[in-house]
């Protein structure tokens, strides 16, 4: 992986540091599973998720709220994989 992409993924990982422990744990589990094996589409979906407010994101990830957006829906499903 080139240095630029490596730095971008490290930044993305830092943006997965959240205000709510629940989200920290979900993202931690996700990154442990995938390592740096993240394609461009997944990276884009993750970027959109981490830009959300924490409570809105947790509502989505915990299934309290649904989304019709296929990109977000797919990423949320990956995060929910136990």
């Amino acid at each position, binding site marked *: 992986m080139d*240095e630029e992409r*490596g*730095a971008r993924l*490290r*930044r993305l*990982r*830092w943006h997965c*540091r*959240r*205000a*709510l*422990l*629940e989200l*920290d*744990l*979900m993202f*931690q589990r996700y990154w442990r599973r995938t390592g740096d094996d993240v394609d461009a589409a997944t990276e884009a979906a993750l970027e959109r998720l981490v830009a959300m*407010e*924490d*409570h809105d994101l947790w509502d989505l990830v*915990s*299934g*309290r709220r649904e989304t019709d957006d296929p990109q977000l829906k797919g990423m949320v499903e990956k995060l*929910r994989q*136990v």
Partner: protein
Amino acid sequence: MKVTKRTFDAVIVGAGGAGLRAALQLSESGLKTAVITKVFPTRSHTVAAQGGVAASLGNSEEDHWHWHMYDTVKGSDWLGDQDAIEFMCRKANEVVIELEHYGMPFDRTDAGKIYQRPFGGHMSNFGEKPVRRSCAAADRTGHAMLHALYQRNVRANTQFFVEWMALDLIRDAEGEVLGVTALEMETGEIVAFQSKATIFATGGAGRIYYSSTNAFINTGDGLGMAARAGIPLEDMEFWQFHPTGVAGAGVLITEGVRGEGGILRNSAGERFMERYAPNAKDLASRDVVSRAMVTEINEGRGCGPNKDFVLLDITHLDPKVIMQRLPGIREISIQFAGTDPIKEPIPVVPTCHYQMGGIPTNYSGQVVAPRGSSMNVAVPGFYAAGECACASVHGANRLGTNSLLDLLVFGKSAGETAVEDVKKSTKAHKDLPQEAIERTLARINRLDTQKDGADAHESRLAMQRTMQNHCGVFRFADKLKEGVSKILDVQKDVQRVAIKDKSKVFNTARIEALELENLIEVAVATMISAEARKESRGAHVRDDAPDTPENPNGRDDKNWLKHTLWFKEGNRLDYKSVKLTPLTVDTIELKKRAY
């Protein structure tokens, strides 16, 4: 080596509620103000606060700040300073109404006033009956508060340094604080922030425990920096625990689960609370339930391969009740415990939630430390507020909804004091002592060059397990003694942590290693302070200090009505008196804390 220098009137470290409230005070007074924060301000841990903010507005029924003060002193188990508590309770209405004017969307009564609800420990008429004192914005009070304060700061031209980590206090030979060194994550560059006022609002350090409700960002950075700069940490033995966090994860399972009929069971399937609280059983108070759980685990009746948790059973409830009345619990259990609570019980342990101690301050937000014969001399140029500070209003135990009040009142107060100090100072900024900057560079250099060092993840885990097992919610003399020796061993490992990734841009391994250096200071302070305090008080409960007629609840006012001060140098302890004289009213006299 030279580093870039940036100069401000005031620098605030941390952009949660306390940091944003302090920054607002400074920026609106026209001072050039910088806020350094590891994460975007509205992602600070204040977001997680749901309960509300306490203020005796009396919108729903009669209330008075003096009643609130009484509740807070009693809640603190008389370890809170009564001058600071009076100050906070008297200021509550003002800071809440200010926040309302900043656009905070509080819940409303039909008449359009701020709606208030009851909350544990808040009573009317000096402990007579529950009172409606908590002001909330649905279940997103902290989130709404941060947004209101952030927007106001943007308007006031506060300059934010987002994704920067403060590393060390810059203090000169006279002890004056002249700013901080900080790391820009984007570039890896170290910069010196020079300021006439430095305010710490870095939050708590709940991540020292294995089971913690705190988000990963709560690494006690301000406490670590203060300790390294020779500032003591006060009352670090006092941590609030919640009985039911998901084992291994820390995510809270609300008390509502037991309210709906959830039962705690040990490895034999026994409903053990019947033995500890025959009447209230699983609905006994938080401390009683937590102690019972720890006793079961310590006596070998815990569950799982390591016998280190108990079970919260709701399998006997109608699944419809679980889905309707306990929304989210099923999902939390599936996600973080790997069990569906409709079919299997949830593994739970008492979980660290809030840090009562911290950097010692007075009610004006100035950091204070012993000098000569006085125990509370202001450290020039240094202020602190919020969970990282110890004013001390929570003493040995915090009341719910007083944490958001703490950060509003003392964030504002620290800001006001800093404004006065900066405006009356006629001198230019002092030169920064190069040796203070070199200390930061040496820490970074050690991390970059350490060979065959310890693993950061393993060391963090060792610290967290040591704290959980030796200094948890229920404490034992022999375990604490052993814990001191173990945590000092872990500290040695932390001092030789090595990182593989040496890159500059967003090097999260380096950031986490630096955070660990802060956490370990807090862990050592906690263990040593707890081992030394030979009584039970508030959240510090020792097996060898039980309830007796001479010492009700194990509290020993004759010997231990005093604040602990831990100094990093030599792990030295000192003690200072509790301020029992309020500002204008009579002392709230000592008595047994009972509800």
